[in-house]
C-alpha cells in the first residue's frame, strides 16, 4: 500500500506482514463494534441521589409505594423505591446497577420488578365518571356561555365549547336575554386534556389556565396521541392560557386524557392523579366521538419482569440483568422500576439502568429512517405532515 514509514531489514519483513494483518483484523473488529454501537446503542438512564435535581437525571420521581418522594437514596428494611424512565427504542435487555454509599450496609439481595406502560395508566383507580360536568349552557348567536349565578362566562370559541359539550346541551337565547346578565372576561377554554395546534406547535391543555407544548412529533406519537384529534386553535383561543414547560417523555399524561384498556374494553379518564373508569352512556359516547382514546394494557403479572440484584464485581455495587421481551409489546414508553425487599437499611448513591437495543433489521431500518428524516430536515427538505 505504501512504503514502510521506518525502513525495515528484509529479515523482519515476514514478521511485519503478520503483525500488519493482525492490526487490520483488530481494526476491523473495532470498526464493526463501533458501527454496532451506532446501530444498536445501549441507552443508559440514571439517577444521582447526591444531586437529585440534576438535569442529567433521566430517571424520574423516585418515590415510595405511598407516593412520597425518596430523593435521598435511603431505603429502609422492607421499604420500596419506585422510579420511572422513558428511553426511546425497542429494547431486549435491561441491566440494573445500584451503587451504594460507602457507609451503607450491603444487602444479600434486592428484588427488582419492571413493567412498561403509560405512567398515567398506572395511577390508582378512582371513582367512575358517569356524565357531563353539570353546567347551565346558552348560545347567543355564535357565542356560547355558561350561566354561573347571574353572570355569563363565555367560551373562548365554538371549538372550545364543542370540545366539552354537545351542541344540544346549549339552550338558545337572544341578545335581550344576554343584556340582562353580566358577561365576564373570564373565558372558558377547551376541555382539559385537549390537543390544540397553533403556528407550528401542538399544545396539550393541562388545566383551565395552562397549556404545555409537546416537545416533538416523535414524543407526540410515543405518548399515544393521534394527529386527527388536534383542534386548530386561533391566537385568541390559546391566548387565555399560560404557557407551561415543554412536555417531554417521562412526564405522565395530563388530566383529561382518555385511555382504553385493550383487554377489558373499559375507558378511563385521568383526573387528579387517578385513573377513573368512564361509565357507558352519552358522556363516554361524546368523548370517544371527539378523540381517539389511547390504547393501553391494564397492569398485570404477565407484563412484569423481575430479577434479584446481588453484589457485582465492583465493590458496594448490586447488579442484575433481565430479559425485556415479555414487556416489549406493552403499550406506552414508560418503564416503572420497583426496588424492594432489602434485608438491611441501604443508602443508594446512584441508580443506573442500561437498556440494550434489540438486534434486528426493524431497529436498523428505524434508525436509517430517522437519519434520513434528520438529514432532510437539516437541509429544509423535510416532508410536511
Amino acid at each position, binding site marked *: 500500500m*505504501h*512504503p*514502510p*514509514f*521506518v*525502513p*525495515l*531489514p528484509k*529479515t*523482519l519483513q515476514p*514478521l*511485519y506482514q503478520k*503483525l*500488519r494483518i493482525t*492490526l487490520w483484523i483488530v*481494526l476491523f473488529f473495532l*470498526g464493526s463494534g*463501533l458501527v454496532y*454501537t*451506532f446501530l444498536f*446503542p445501549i441507552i443508559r438512564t440514571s439517577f444521582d441521589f447526591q444531586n437529585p435535581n440534576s438535569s442529567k437525571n433521566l430517571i424520574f420521581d423516585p418515590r415510595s409505594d405511598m407516593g412520597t418522594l425518596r430523593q435521598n437514596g435511603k431505603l429502609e428494611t422492607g421499604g420500596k423505591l419506585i422510579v420511572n424512565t422513558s428511553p426511546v427504542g425497542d429494547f431486549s435487555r435491561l441491566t440494573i446497577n445500584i451503587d451504594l454509599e460507602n457507609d451503607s450496609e450491603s444487602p444479600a439481595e434486592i428484588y427488582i420488578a419492571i413493567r412498561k406502560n403509560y405512567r398515567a395508566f398506572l395511577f390508582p383507580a378512582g371513582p367512575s365518571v358517569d356524565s357531563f360536568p353539570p353546567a347551565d349552557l346558552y348560545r347567543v348567536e355564535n357565542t356560547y356561555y355558561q350561566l354561573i349565578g347571574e353572570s355569563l362566562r363565555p367560551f373562548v370559541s365554538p371549538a372550545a365549547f364543542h370540545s366539552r359539550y354537545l351542541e344540544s346541551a346549549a339552550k338558545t337565547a337572544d341578545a335581550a336575554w344576554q343584556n340582562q346578565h353580566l358577561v365576564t372576561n373570564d373565558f372558558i377554554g377547551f376541555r382539559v386534556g385537549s390537543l390544540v395546534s397553533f403556528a407550528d406547535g401542538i399544545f396539550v391543555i393541562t388545566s383551565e389556565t395552562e397549556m404545555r407544548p409537546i416537545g416533538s412529533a416523535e414524543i407526540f406519537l410515543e405518548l399515544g396521541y393521534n394527529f386527527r384529534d388536534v383542534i386548530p386553535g386561533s391566537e385568541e383561543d390559546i391566548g387565555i392560557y399560560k404557557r407551561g414547560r415543554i412536555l417531554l417523555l417521562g412526564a405522565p399524561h395530563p388530566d383529561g386524557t382518555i385511555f382504553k384498556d385493550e383487554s377489558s374494553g373499559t375507558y378511563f379518564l385521568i383526573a387528579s392523579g387517578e385513573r377513573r373508569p368512564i361509565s357507558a352512556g352519552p358522556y363516554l359516547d361524546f368523548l370517544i366521538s371527539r378523540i381517539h382514546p389511547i390504547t393501553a394494557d391494564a397492569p398485570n403479572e404477565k407484563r412484569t419482569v423481575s430479577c434479584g440484584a446481588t453484589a457485582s464485581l465492583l465493590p458496594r455495587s448490586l447488579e442484575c440483568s433481565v430479559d425485556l421481551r415479555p414487556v416489549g409489546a406493552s403499550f406506552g414508553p414508560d418503564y416503572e422500576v420497583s426496588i424492594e425487599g432489602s434485608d438491611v437499611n441501604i443508602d443508594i448513591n446512584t441508580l443506573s439502568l442500561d437498556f440494550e437495543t434489540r438486534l434486528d433489521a426493524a431497529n436498523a431500518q428505524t434508525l436509517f429512517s430517522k*437519519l434520513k428524516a*434528520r*438529514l432532510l430536515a*437539516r*437541509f429544509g427538505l423535510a416532508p410536511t405532515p
Partner: protein
Amino acid sequence: MPTNTFKKLDERLQADGHIAIAANLLYEAVLIGWASFALLYALETLLPTFVIARLSLVKFSVCLILFTILLGWLGQLGEAKIAQTKKMHPLLLAVLGLFLLSTVMLANYRFPWWTIPISIGGYGLVAWFFFKIFQENR
C-alpha cells in the same frame, strides 16, 4: 543509572528492529485513526449529536494526538523516511477530492453567495501555508 539503562534499551530495540516494526504499525493505525476521525467529524457536522451521543470525539482526538506524538518520537528513533512517499493512487485521490468537495459544499450550504468565494479562498490560503511549512520541514 536510568539514563544508561534507557540508552541500552533503546540501542537494543533499534538493533533488533522492534522499534521499526512498532513505528510502521503505529503509522498505519494513526493514519486510519485520523481518516476515521475526519469521517466521524463530517458525519457529526451533518447530523449534530449523532456521533457524540455515542462516542466522544474529544477523547478520540486526544488519543490520536498522543499516538501521533508517540509516532513522531518512534519515527525519530527509527530514522523515518517520510520523503519516500510516492504519488497517491488515482482512486484514493478521487475519494479524497470528493470528500473535500462535499465538505466544502456542505460547509457553505445556505451561506450568502458572496461569502462563498471568500471562505473557499480562506481554505486555500490555510492549505497553502500548511503546504509551505511541510515543504520547509522536508
